[in-house]
């Protein structure tokens, strides 16, 4: 692949006002800075070392910590100057400032000294040590001796749930935590208490932090107050962690991550900055979901079911021979939206297009196909997450995005603030002046309309909400499109649709967000119609279609000639099948599944793997290199973080081995060759070849990209419990990354191959600015990934007709509910996520509950599914509708749009997550 052709993104589209430049003299040297930008931001964009605490690149300035002091001079003759806070001063032409002047440097040193008065001397036992912004700033300012010998204020720490630890004594009162949690992410249960030197940051009392973005506190806090709790249990210093650029496997947003490993254990996941996707933040499912990699139910050996029904592990060769004998003739291949694009392509090549099925239920497949059809009709650029932040009116149609695409929901929260920024601009308040913008804007919010089956977490920001089943919401979508553009097919008209149409049509950059969770192509068409109607009015309207798995769009793009029902029928008729990283019990009723002749490749002992004839141990995403395609159709490469132990291998390698033993031998010596074959062999995937630099990029010794930081320790001894001989380091011939601490990670390489951020003097994640073109802009070597469909041309006309509203006929209309913690399959095997996963439940209107004779917390039987679940009563769910949580461990799988319900008097509520329970269909 062509390493040089990695596309550089255009300059940051984050900026609301186009920049003019200002020449500013800094310590005797002239710089061209962005006029109006605050000087801290501008200096960091020039890669100058200027200390700070309270300013945050995504949250702006409040000027509270006083660390970013500089000296500003009136003119050339001014020798004395005035002390100023760089983060609160806008860059103006002909300014003269100094970072190094003793006046400023001494002041900064004093700021650290007074912050340190109460800070404990506990770096050696603090999880932040070695990657602590407070340590870095202390060293940078030169405060190296404590003079304060008095008592320090101490606090009682709080229990904040399974994700985040709390050690309040380390707090330096920068306010970043509450500014993120409350102001940026909309959380209500974390606050600042007290005043002066006695400030406490936490909940009112012990309890689980409610926000699904709480984990970002770990990275936002510049010291060790908020820590990654699961990581603390298996703690390793940053300098001893091996990591690689990766992509979150838990939904289709495709946030970029750094999973980190030591001793073969995946220790933690942190944010990997992407200028257009996740920026500086992840959701908690992404941050804490990856402990499935360490699950005790990992498949570690190839197993063949013996005559006694028990799996025998006689080595990979024996298993492959068995598979070859079994799979000599016609063969069904079931792919997976959680497996890599390459593994799915390899499977498709192996079994042939007509025998390959993407591995999603047929209604989901149909919905994904409708999504691609809409994207292909074009007329708009699928918005990136940062584009979502810039929308000035938003309609959410039929998808609870906080659950299915959490990072996008966080972006919508920022979009809603757009009008406050407009007001600030008119009042002459700079966008980065966070306290000023918030104070001036008060409660002003840009329009947000939420139409979903059940209440969602962003309803609190909505101008109006509307509830209904998918067909009903689709009808409302058509109604909105028609109200905007009368030539479009008509639909439901009511107060909600009228208000939404008016607000969207009055906006410049209106955005519609829908998704595949409702499994309703009609809903997607309705959403597309709204966008196209707005385009007809010359609005820069655009559409996001969320999907629930990391590679849902990848498998949709690969196509395949077989649907799941047909594939399962052939399996029931006795045909052998290769099942790729897919737990079929999560997708279809158990009765449809016959695994007697199935070869299952998976990383976990799912119920599907447990029922197979042969199981081959597949690598997880952290143990292999591959590609996921996100909701934007952005293909992104994830790299192997560590070599899997024993027989575990990437699925595509198993498939290549099976291929060699069959007629259809395929020759893919490495992942690059496989990706190239996929690019050239699949309509519309050609751009994949520019995804990432090829293996030969920087082949010269000591210039390769190291997975380990320079201080990686214990190489000779870390495996001494296994063998006293120093093991040979694995050799990676497939990618530009090396299993070594030698090499160059200076940030000038393509953004796709930055394995961690670390820069001299900047040991913490704050060093990311040294890897960006400018603060908050694209990575220096370009933001990762290529968008496979990117066609803004065309102006599609009205598309489809509103579906008929479904009749209840004495039944309940059933809607799917997706839970942010628990509904994702892989995260459901992650212990901390399981602690947050609720017991299976459904949501009912109070009148329906009363009629059924069931109270909140009681049980109802869903007749069709032969299952009982706990009832949540909520007046905000329409009468006649039952919303059933999907994908929760032990929960029922909804297979029809209508169900019959009955109170279950014998129901005993189950507690939520149990790490030992594995989801059953």
């Amino acid at each position, binding site marked *: 692949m062509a390493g040089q052709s990695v596309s550089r993104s255009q300059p940051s589209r984050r900026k609301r006002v186009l920049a003019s430049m200002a020449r500013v003299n800094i310590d005797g040297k002239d710089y061209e800075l962005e006029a109006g930008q605050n000087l801290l931001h501008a200096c960091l964009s020039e890669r100058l070392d200027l200390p700070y605490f309270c300013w945050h690149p995504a949250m702006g300035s409040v000027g509270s910590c006083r660390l970013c002091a500089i000296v500003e001079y009136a003119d050339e003759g001014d020798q004395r100057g005035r002390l100023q806070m760089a983060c609160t001063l806008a860059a103006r032409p002909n300014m003269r400032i100094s970072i190094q002047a003793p006046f400023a440097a001494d002041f900064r040193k004093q700021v650290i000294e007074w912050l340190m008065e109460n800070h404990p001397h506990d770096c050696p036992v603090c999880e932040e040590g070695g990657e602590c912004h407070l340590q870095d700033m202390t060293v940078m300012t030169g405060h190296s001796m404590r003079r304060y010998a008095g008592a320090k204020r101490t606090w009682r720490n709080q229990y904040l749930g399974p994700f985040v630890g709390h050690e309040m004594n380390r707090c330096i009162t920068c306010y970043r935590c509450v500014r993120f949690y409350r102001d940026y992410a909309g959380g209500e*249960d974390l*606050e*600042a*208490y007290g005043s002066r030197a006695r400030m406490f940051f936490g909940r*009112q*009392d012990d309890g689980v932090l409610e926000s699904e973005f709480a984990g970002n506190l770990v990275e936002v806090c510049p010291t060790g107050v908020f820590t990654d709790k699961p990581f603390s249990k298996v703690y390793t210093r940053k300098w001893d962690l091996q990591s690689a650029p990766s992509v979150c496997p838990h939904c289709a947003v495709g946030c970029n991550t750094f999973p980190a490993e030591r001793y073969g254990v995946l220790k933690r996941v942190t944010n990997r900055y992407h200028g257009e996707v996740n920026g500086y933040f992840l959701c908690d499912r992404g941050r804490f979901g990856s402990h499935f990699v360490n699950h005790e139910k990992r498949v570690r050996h190839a197993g063949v079911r013996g005559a006694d029904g028990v799996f025998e592990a006689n080595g990979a060769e024996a298993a492959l021979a068995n598979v070859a004998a079994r799979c000599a003739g016609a063969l069904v291949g079931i792919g997976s939206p959680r497996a890599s694009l390459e593994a799915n392509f390899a499977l498709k090549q192996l079994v042939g297009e007509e025998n390959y099925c993407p591995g999603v239920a047929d209604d989901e497949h149909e919905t994904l196909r409708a999504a691609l059809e809409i994207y292909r009709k074009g007329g708009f650029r699928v918005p990136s997450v940062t584009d979502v932040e810039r929308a000035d009116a938003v309609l959410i149609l039929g998808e609870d995005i906080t659950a299915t695409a959490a990072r996008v929901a966080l972006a919508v929260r920022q979009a809603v603030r757009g009008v406050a920024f407009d007001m600030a601009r008119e009042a002459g308040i700079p966008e980065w002046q966070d306290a000023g913008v918030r104070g001036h804007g008060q409660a002003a919010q840009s329009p947000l309309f939420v139409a979903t089956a059940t209440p969602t977490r962003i309803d609190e920001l909505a101008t109006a909400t509307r509830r209904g089943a998918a067909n009903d919401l689709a009808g409302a979508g058509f109604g909105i499109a028609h109200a905007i553009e009368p030539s479009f097919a008509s639909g439901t008209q009511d107060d909600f649709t009228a208000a939404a149409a008016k607000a969207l049509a009055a906006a410049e950059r209106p955005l519609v967000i829908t998704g595949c969770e409702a499994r309703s192509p009609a809903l997607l068409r309705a959403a597309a119609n709204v966008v196209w109607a707005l385009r007809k009015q010359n609005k820069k309207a655009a559409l996001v279609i969320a999907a629930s798995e990391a590679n849902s769009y990848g498998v949709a793009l690969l196509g395949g000639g077989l649907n799941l029902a047909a594939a399962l029928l052939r399996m029931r008729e006795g045909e052998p099948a290769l099942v790729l990283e897919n737990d079929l019990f999560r997708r279809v009723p158990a009765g449809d599944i016959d695994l007697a002749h199935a070869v299952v490749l998976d990383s976990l002992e799912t119920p599907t793997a447990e029922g197979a004839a042969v199981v081959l141990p597949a690598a997880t995403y952290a143990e292999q290199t591959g590609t996921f395609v996100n909701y934007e159709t952005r293909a992104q490469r994830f790299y192997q973080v560590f070599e899997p132990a024993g027989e575990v291998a990437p699925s595509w390698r198993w498939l290549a081995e099976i291929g060699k033993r069959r007629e259809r031998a395929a020759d893919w010596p490495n992942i690059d060759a496989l990706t190239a074959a996929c690019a050239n062999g699949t309509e519309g995937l050609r751009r994949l070849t520019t995804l990432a630099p090829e293996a030969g990029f920087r082949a010269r010794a000591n210039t390769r990209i190291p997975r380990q930081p320079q201080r990686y320790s214990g190489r000779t001894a870390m495996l001494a419990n296994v063998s006293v001989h120093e093991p040979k380091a694995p050799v990676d011939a497939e990618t530009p990354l090396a299993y070594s601490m030698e090499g160059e990670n200076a940030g000038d390489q393509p953004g796709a191959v930055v394995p961690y951020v670390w820069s001299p003097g900047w040991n913490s994640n704050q060093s990311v600015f040294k890897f960006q073109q400018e603060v908050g802009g694209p990575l220096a070597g370009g933001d990762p990934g290529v968008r496979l469909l990117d066609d803004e041309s065309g102006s599609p006309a009205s598309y489809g007709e509103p579906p008929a509203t479904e009749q209840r006929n004495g039944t309940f209309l059933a809607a799917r509910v997706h839970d942010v913690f628990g509904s994702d399959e892989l995260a459901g095997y992650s212990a901390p996520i399981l602690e947050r996963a609720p017991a299976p439940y459904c949501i009912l209107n109070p009148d329906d509950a009363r009629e059924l004779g069931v109270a909140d917390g009681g049980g109802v039987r869903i007749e069709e599914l032969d299952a009982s679940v706990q009832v949540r009563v909520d007046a905000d769910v329409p009468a006649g509708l039952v919303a059933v949580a999907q994908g929760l461990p032990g929960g029922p799988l909804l297979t029809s749009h209508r169900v019959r319900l009955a109170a279950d008097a014998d129901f005993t509520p189950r507690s939520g997550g149990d790490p030992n329970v594995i989801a059953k269909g």
Partner: protein
Amino acid sequence: MAEPALIQVLSDEELREIEEECSHLPDRKSAAIDAMMIVQRHRGWVSDESLAAIARLLGMSLESLDSIATFYNLIYRKPVGRHVVMVCDSVSCYVMGADGLRKKVEEHLGIELGETTPDDRFTLLPIVCLGACDRAPTMMIGDELIGDVRSDQLAEIFGRFE
């Protein structure tokens, strides 16, 4: 008013006064400080239960209300004695011997800063500048501001408060 039981913590009189405050304000949350002062006037302090009830009543999170409560040192989140004694520790009083005065007060009452006498008569707290620097050192007992305090007057001063 989701959980009536919680709001029942407050007396009818308190509820009436809080609602009266709310009626003058653009939104209920703006009545937070007044509501807490009303409850404190009736009960002497704001307990966790009162706090939760006020939060429900005003439609705000417990966290944001407690954040306000703890910012102001005249809102008491723990029970206080009948009279709150506040000794100024800001700069003018510091120069004029506030530290020494505080020690004398502590000796006299037999308690330290933040404590209440066993007979619930006095609670001792520090306070920032009382705006009477010309009469430093100063202290306040209940609503009464006392300037030019000399330690030999303490017995007489405290004797005035039962």
